[in-house]
């Protein structure tokens, strides 16, 4: 069994974010990065399948040199090898461009299972995973909170609005986009980190993958127009007076809004 895990390196959740000079993205210099939280659960789920039986886990990521650290961490946690698409031509791609690169890797690897996070902490699109599945012509399930039966078909539980769950069955190969919290993510052990030094990271360009003309700002149908901080204070009302007054007016507000 082979499992491909797609992971993205995103700014650390505690990092101070400033908007870049031309207002199209955040300032990335001197920023601390980490693996997208959703993707850590995707990797853990793949590693659990590996621990329970026999599987090769291949981690895949797109991004500049700094992404090596995310991949080494994943290898330290127990992934077997990595593919790193390090190509400035991919910069400025929209979700479809990214999905085309990842789909090209998935096709080349022809795994039994692709596991991704449901969304990325920075972009929040949730677009790439279903696109990969479509491009590879495989069934997919999103918002996965439980995975059962690694042999034959897979039974997965999906989280719906309002806390309801949906159970679906998928034949393999398929793609699962997982929700956070479906497992407890392990730490990269010191032994794992030592072993990761010897595991291969295969560096590729979009052209190597045959999608050189389908990526980058030129091929993108969605363009980042503007990133901005919403103006502060709007919509906020400061309640003043004694504690009793404040509690009274707060209760009135809550009732007014029909929240109780």
């Amino acid at each position: 069994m082979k499992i491909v895990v797609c992971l993205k390196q995103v700014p650390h959740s505690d990092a101070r974010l400033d908007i870049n000079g031309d207002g199209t993205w955040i300032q990335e210099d001197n920023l601390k990065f980490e693996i997208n939280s959703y993707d850590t659960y995707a990797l853990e789920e793949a590693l659990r399948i590996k621990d329970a039986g026999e599987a090769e886990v291949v981690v895949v990521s797109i991004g500049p040199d700094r992404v090596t650290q995310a991949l080494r961490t994943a290898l330290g946690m127990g992934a077997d090898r990595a593919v790193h698409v390090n190509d400035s031509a991919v910069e400025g791609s929209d979700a479809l461009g990214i999905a085309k690169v990842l789909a090209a890797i998935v096709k080349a690897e022809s795994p039994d299972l692709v596991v991704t996070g449901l969304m990325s902490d920075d972009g929040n699109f949730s677009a790439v995973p279903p696109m990969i599945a479509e491009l590879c012509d495989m069934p997919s399930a999103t918002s996965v909170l439980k995975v059962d039966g690694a042999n034959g078909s897979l039974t997965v539980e999906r989280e719906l609005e309002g806390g309801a769950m949906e159970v679906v069955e998928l034949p393999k190969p398929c793609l699962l986009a997982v929700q956070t919290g479906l497992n407890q993510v392990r730490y990269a052990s010191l032994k794992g980190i030592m072993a990761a030094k010897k595991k291969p990271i295969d560096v590729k360009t979009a052209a190597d993958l045959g999608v050189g003309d389908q990526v980058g700002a030129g091929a993108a149908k969605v363009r980042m127009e503007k990133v901005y901080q919403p103006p502060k204070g709007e919509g906020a009302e400061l309640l003043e007076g004694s504690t009793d007054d404040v509690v009274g007016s707060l209760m009135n507000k809550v009732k007014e809004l029909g929240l109780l």
Partner: protein
Amino acid sequence: MADFQGVDFLRLDELLSEEEKLARESVREFVSKEFLPRIQEHVRQDGSFPMELVAPMAELGLFGANLHGWGCAGMNNVAYGLVMQELERGDSGLRSFASVQGSLVMYPIHSYGSDAQKDRWLPALQSGQAIGCFGLTEPDFGSHITAMRTKAERRGDTWLLNGTKRWITNGTLAEVAVIWASTDDGIRGFLVERGTPGFEARDIKGKFSLRASVTSELFLRDVEVPESSRLPKAEGMRGPLSCLTQARYGIAWGALGAAMACYDEALEYSKERIVAGGPLAGKQLTQQKLVEMLAEITKGQLVAWRVGRIKDEGNLDFAMVSLAKRNNVDVALRIAREARDLLGANGIVDDYQSMRHMMNLETVRTYEGTHDVHTLILGEKITGLRAL
């Protein structure tokens, strides 16, 4: 408060390999997520360690991380030091647990043990299935341990051990104690198992310092152990002293972790705390204190890093470790006191960490060679005249 992100003013990360940085990050996250949420509860109890973390710590590879074989990670000494730094960023008790297990119990078995002793104990200690302790100090002798009273007398194929060891970390938790005793041929080391008749451990209560750590007294009354439990390659004071060099090296890094935690807390607190119409951090006196902390941490990092690289080259002189331990613990204690002061009244409660680190560092200043003992070791090194 935001997650701890480390202190790196002089871009010292550029002196570190990828694996060294990854080891640090992994342990940092473990300490933030698993250890720190538990510390308050254990500090409020008198001398207790979060035992549920022993198995996860072992899984992470924290026991004997710089040793090779028997399941150990085999990391270099800088990576090992960074791991100790991150553990002590959590608490000196957490770092002590790993130091004792790795440097004071696994190291002597690894260096001076027989093959049978290694096979029996190293995998169990590495995996946390067995906990060990190191019995050198006695009620009447700490710094001048060559005068130790604990005796081992040879009786044919067995040894008879008599004496008392005091201030022994993890004494009551240990399945195996490395006991140093004097014999007719000088000091020798013995592996004494829990439950051996005549061997008893009792905890020392009422500590102001290292409260999240178990400290015990060991009593040996006519304890009979076979010759096969003696560490065959440990002869004289070199045995225990070489263990101490290992542990002291880890402490030189560990103290920086405690210092960083205090600096980080003082910095964040003083930016938020409003005094006399503005943030405390905006006052000249505060800035001087914070800058002093940063400068000392940065110098300490360079000292620890350099000693680590020399250790990896195999050219370490124990006096270098004395300089690193002495300096880094001293500055860490000053930083902790200053940070506690900056926090005002909040600084005296256990919702904040600086006072806990400050109290812990009083122990760290005393154990593994007191500050003054390291001064005298260095004094002898540079003058050639022994004053200790």
